[in-house]
């Protein structure tokens, strides 16, 4: 009798420890960001200004929107898309072309999102057949990059009028539109992955592929849904990005793919799938943008910035991994 009770208490204690560890894992990044903001606003004089915060939020918006969408893919157990850069360039070029030709930025934006959806659907379909997502998205990225570069002749595609930049210049109480779009898209992605049937299927598929399939969840259908969520975000982010620069070239944004992947990983979504949320990935993107902006303000050269960012990503990813391992024991 006592032994049974003893083991029951042991189990409860262990469950308590597990809950604590999971809580630490879930809230470590927001707390870390809060600490970074407090320390930076004390030590870096220009940090707590409206301009700096605005720059950080603007830098977060593009990476954050794509990372929020990518989370759906990661959650479904399909790792990442490594073709982000190429697809963003494609959508950006379509936005400028259609937007200039029609003279209507909304038609341009819809065309750009539609283009992202088409290539996303194709990739989702091939991955849904059971092919490795890393390989498929890498190959698709190379194809999209090559095709875009051939069609544009590798030249800069520039907007004819400043009208096309309205999505980036439009601001409410001084905060630019991309930041609101980030919040709105994150909310939508969160709702889709956490509160709908599709989202539940995505989670289940990532958590245990065999069980999910045996309980009647279509791998093909769910994977395509995950890629479509990702593609909407990618198209929106491309429009916002190109609205800021007003020009785009096939060789642009080389570091974007890795930044998005880093944001998802630092945010704490499990690479094996089933555990995580778009909100976490956006917080990951915010963290990376904050660290980068602080280093820019302090005047750290680009090489050191890369190095510090690499150290931060490795340390955070390893810490999260160890916490997850300890918490699941």
């Amino acid at each position: 009798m006592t032994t049974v009770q003893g083991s029951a208490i042991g189990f409860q204690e262990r469950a308590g420890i597990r809950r604590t560890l999971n809580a630490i894992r879930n809230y470590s990044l927001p707390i870390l960001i809060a600490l970074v903001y407090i320390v930076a606003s004390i030590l870096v004089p220009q940090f707590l200004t409206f301009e700096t915060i605005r720059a950080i939020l603007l830098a977060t918006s593009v990476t954050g929107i794509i990372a929020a969408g990518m989370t759906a893919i990661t959650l479904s157990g399909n790792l990442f898309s490594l073709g982000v850069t190429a697809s963003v360039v494609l959508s950006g070029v379509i936005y400028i072309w259609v937007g200039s030709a029609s003279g209507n930025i909304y038609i341009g934006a819809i065309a750009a999102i539609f283009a992202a959806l088409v290539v996303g659907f194709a990739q989702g379909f091939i991955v849904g057949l059971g092919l490795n997502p890393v390989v498929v998205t890498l190959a698709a990225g190379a194809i999209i990059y090559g095709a875009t570069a051939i069609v544009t002749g590798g030249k800069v595609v520039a907007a004819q009028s400043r009208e096309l930049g309205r999505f980036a210049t439009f601001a409410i109480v001084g905060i630019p539109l991309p930041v609101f779009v980030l919040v709105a898209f994150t909310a939508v992605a969160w709702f889709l992955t956490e509160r709908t049937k599709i989202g539940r299927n995505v989670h289940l598929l990532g958590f245990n592929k065999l069980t999910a399939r045996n309980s009647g969840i279509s791998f093909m259908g769910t994977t395509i849904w995950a890629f479509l969520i990702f593609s909407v975000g990618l198209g929106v982010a491309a429009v916002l990005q190109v609205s800021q620069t007003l020009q785009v070239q096939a060789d642009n944004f080389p570091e974007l793919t890795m930044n998005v992947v880093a944001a998802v990983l630092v945010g704490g979504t499990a690479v094996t799938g089933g555990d995580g949320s778009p909100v976490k990935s956006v917080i990951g993107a915010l963290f990376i943008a904050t660290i980068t902006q602080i280093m820019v303000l302090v005047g750290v050269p680009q090489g050191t910035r890369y190095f510090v960012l690499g150290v931060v990503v490795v340390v955070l990813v390893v810490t999260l991994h160890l916490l997850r391992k300890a918490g699941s024991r």
Partner: protein
Amino acid sequence: MRSVSAWFGRYALQLVVLVIVIVSMYALYPAFRVEASIERLIPLGVIAAGLAVTMIAGEFDLSIASMAALAGALTVTLSGLGLIVAVLITVTVCTLFGMLQGWAIAKLGINSLVFTVGTLVLIRGVTWLVCGGLAISIDDIAASDIFYGRLLFLSPLSATGLVILVALGIFLSRTRWGRELYALGSSRPEAIAAGVRYPRGMVIAFGISAGCGAVGGSLTSALSGSAAPNALESMLVAGIAAALVGGISIAGGRGTMVNVFLGFAIISVLAAGLAGMGAKAFVSQLFIGVFLLLIVLAEYFIARVGEQSRRSRLRRLAEA
């Protein structure tokens, strides 16, 4: 005789594709010289080999292109000691770093894709620091002349690349540690239960991968006499494409150095031919992407047809 036909059967898909690519290059561009493509063994061939070793062990090393860039920067920085000495020191240092990375992955039990995304950025950052943020070059311009000799149809660099591929092939297929990588890649729990030491496998696989990346980057910089912080970034995609087009399985446990060589040959003949015809680099990117997708799709459907015929055979047996 049977083993010869079995050998051809094993590499049939890649051999057919290679012949088609070579023939179509000669048809489109008569001045094409196929032996010139082999010069791309450094850096593409060895980087593909490094990626292949980690894939065979069931892992993935995304940091290999950054490692190659770091090796290039280190070689240029150390070139005052003599170019060959600089290359040797660089390759040793990078291999040790790769072994450390493999050890960390094994000890943490972390997904290597996740870990190497971090080290990809980190090593690129170290490269920026070594270069001081700028492209750097060797002071003694004549130093790289030793690499312009000829051994038969091979330059010293492509000969080195070939030797590395052959050595890795022998290591993987003929030694115990090499065979253990296949075991770890194809069925890890069973391999560990049977006594294969997982940490040792990871140290070996990531050591080889980093070493291959370092040889590629170091010799590229030694030949050109320069290094840049953002160099060789495209080698990650090209190397993965070469390994997978050659028939290395990304799921682990399958593929040989012959596969790597065939994949490398297909990609480099294609790139060399297109470059010879005056096409821009992005055209060959498009073709590499198409090839990669077609080959993985072809293998997927071949595997499916094989599975179906196996099932129908079993059904017939059951009915009989």
